[in-house]
């Protein structure tokens, strides 16, 4: 039956956006024009539609995030399907995939089935699931991936942890021949990472914080690329953070291995120089913020396509969990509601990245990799779009978030590119 994307029932959107700058790399649109949404589809009669003044605003195809933590089941105090998908809509996302590191982990048909049922009522935008590769995400036994595929899984991931055992990884790649779904890999050698909590380098040395070396990531990617090559498998690398990893992904692609990769906005924009403030709510995540050399390599890799897409790794945490000393606070930052604005402000306005490419990397490319519907503004398509204000400044504040959690790397930053309206799956999902 293929990948299932679930969205709750709702009224089809009907609206006409007048005179916006419309950009859709997929459809070859880059001009000022109107966008009509009738009965949830692009185009059609404008008669009787609510008119929205789009002058000075940007309309893009909606974004696709293959890497979100919805904390459901188990930690609904930090996020649930309603708030997580609402946060996604507020960030211009029209499809997201949820990671399985829940409590219990999403590692069985029973848990996935219950989540799908819940999403039918709760998901504000189309939501898919990436169940675990191994039972309990403990890296030992494969999950029932045949049945999970039949239920509509979008792929498999042990995100949060690597599949440390190479033989287990190999079995998962063999099993993939029957599911056809991507293995979505958090790449890290747990022994090399040890108790590390920040990028191993001069800043960590100055702060006395144990380091996570770049090679912890690149060694794991090299191993899994070789395993994928041997088994003819297909892998997707989560949140690439190090220039050494970029080199490994590039090498694997040159060898013809079926490998894709994502990068987060925070790794594209921030470095370990931020750590001097010792604020875990903003700057402690895994993989960690790395050096400026790494950041530049990531931007270059995103431009040349070595890294295929942007994903947020939206990782909500309770306020109190992050009110801990840096060294002992948990990893993770939210990202859905700031992804576009942060990348637009930090990469497009600075001239590092074109707007066209940013939209591709947030929308078309992740959709393609995961074989999800590609959002487009061409006539007759299901309406999946974002209306974005790229002219006024927005000082990111904790009170702005639709997410239940506020541990954003961009709190207090002045950004441009706040999303004003999102139509997802043909339904109005967000309006500021």
């Amino acid at each position, binding site marked *: 039956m293929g990948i299932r994307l679930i969205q709750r029932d709702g009224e089809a959107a009907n609206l006409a956006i007048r005179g916006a700058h419309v950009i859709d790399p997929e459809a070859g649109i880059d001009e000022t024009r109107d966008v009509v949404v009738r009965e949830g589809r692009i185009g059609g009669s404008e008669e009787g539609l609510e008119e929205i003044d789009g002058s000075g605003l940007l309309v893009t195809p909606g974004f696709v995030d293959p890497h979100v933590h919805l904390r459901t089941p188990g930690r609904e105090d930090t996020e649930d399907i309603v708030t997580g998908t609402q946060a996604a809509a507020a960030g211009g996302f029209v499809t997201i995939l949820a990671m399985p590191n829940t409590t219990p982990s999403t590692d069985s048909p029973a848990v996935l089935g219950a989540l799908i049922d819940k999403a039918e009522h709760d998901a504000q935008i189309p939501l898919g699931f990436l169940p675990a590769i191994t039972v309990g995400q403990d890296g030992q036994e494969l999950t029932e991936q045949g049945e999970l595929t039949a239920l509509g899984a979008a792929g498999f991931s042990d995100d949060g942890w690597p599949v440390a055992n190479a033989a287990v990884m190999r079995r998962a790649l063999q099993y993939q021949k029957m599911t056809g779904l991507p293995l979505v890999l958090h790449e890290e050698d747990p022994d090399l990472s040890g*108790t590390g909590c920040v990028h*191993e*380098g*001069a*800043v*960590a*040395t*100055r*702060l*006395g*914080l*144990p*380091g996570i*070396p770049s090679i912890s990531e690149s060694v794991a990617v090299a191993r899994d690329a070789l395993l994928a090559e041997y088994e003819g498998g297909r892998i997707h690398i989560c949140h690439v953070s190090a220039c050494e990893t970029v080199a490994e992904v590039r090498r694997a692609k040159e060898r013809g291995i079926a490998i894709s990769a994502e990068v987060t906005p925070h790794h594209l924009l921030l470095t370990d120089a931020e750590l001097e403030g*010792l604020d*875990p709510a903003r700057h402690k995540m895994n993989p960690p913020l790395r050096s400026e050399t790494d950041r530049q390599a990531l931007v270059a890799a995103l431009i040349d396509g070595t890294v295929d897409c942007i994903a947020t790794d939206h990782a909500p945490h309770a306020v*109190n969990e992050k*009110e*801990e*000393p*840096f*060294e*002992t*606070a948990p990893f993770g930052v939210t990202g859905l509601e700031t992804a576009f604005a942060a990348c637009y402000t930090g990469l497009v306005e600075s001239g590092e990245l074109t707007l066209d490419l940013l939209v591709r990397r947030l929308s078309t490319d992740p959709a393609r990799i995961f074989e999800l519907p590609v959002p487009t503004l061409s006539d007759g398509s299901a309406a999946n779009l974002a209306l974005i204000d790229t002219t006024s400044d927005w000082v990111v504040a904790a009170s702005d978030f639709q997410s239940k959690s506020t541990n954003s790397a961009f709190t207090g930053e002045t950004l441009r590119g706040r999303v004003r309206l999102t139509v997802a799956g043909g339904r109005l999902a967000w309006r500021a």
Partner: protein
Amino acid sequence: MNRHLISIAELDRPEVARILRESHRFSEVMDRDLKKVPTLRGRSIVNLFFEASTRTSTSFELAGKRLSADVVNVKASGSSAEKGESLKDTVLTLDTYAPDVLVIRHPAVGAARLATRYTDAVVINAGDGAHAHPTQALLDLYTVEREVGPIDGLHVAFVGDVSHSRVARSGALAFRMMGARVSLVGPATLIPRDAESALGVTVSHDIGDIAAADLIYVLRMQLERMGKGGHVPTLREYAAMFGVNHARIRAGQRVMHAGPMNRGVEISPALADDPITLVERQAGYGMVVRMAVLHDAVARSGSAAEALAEAV
């Protein structure tokens, strides 16, 4: 100057020099018969220790008492932390008693910085993980000034387990700030990455290179932080390769150690007991330096003009 003292990097050279001068004034008090001054009468100091300590906790406590402050010591064992209270809540609770100064020691990097968010007191970092121990660095500077001479132009070699050492991190910054040259000598497995650029030091893995130093600062092997599959094959080999002993030093060199010492590991028992080793002087001077630091902290707390009017 910052209100709080979290890291040596927050001080500049004139501020350090001033603290060292104040330390000297307090050391003269300690030569008196009555070793108590009214400087901080009516002020309160909370010493919040989440990690074992003899020297630092005792000297902070005595320093406060000799300044006539009301001093309360809170240890993790026996406190609400044992019941799972967060550091935030512990600090908020203590803050309701309106202390002027909060001295904090904690095993996790960032604990002292976190505490500054939840108290109006001036926070003094008495050690947070492997990050910083600024009063140790100040007392080390003071010890060298008193026992050796001017710091400017000296060469200080920190020897051993740099990775886990807040003493080395704060010390390297402090000695460099005061014009000394700093090198790190130790096993490659215990020198953190990019130490040269991070700390402005030179690095060597050959114990013979301590010959070039005026001061040899021996670091404790922090076995409790190394875990299994340790950073050196055996302590026997470590002692053989990097243990500092009489055979490895030359005339005129002085030896320092922040304590507690692992005799026979990083330092030979004979050298530990030799008067060229300053370890006991460091411990002793720790109190007067902490008197100066507490005095300074209250001066910065903004409510202490009248207290300062009372000269030492």
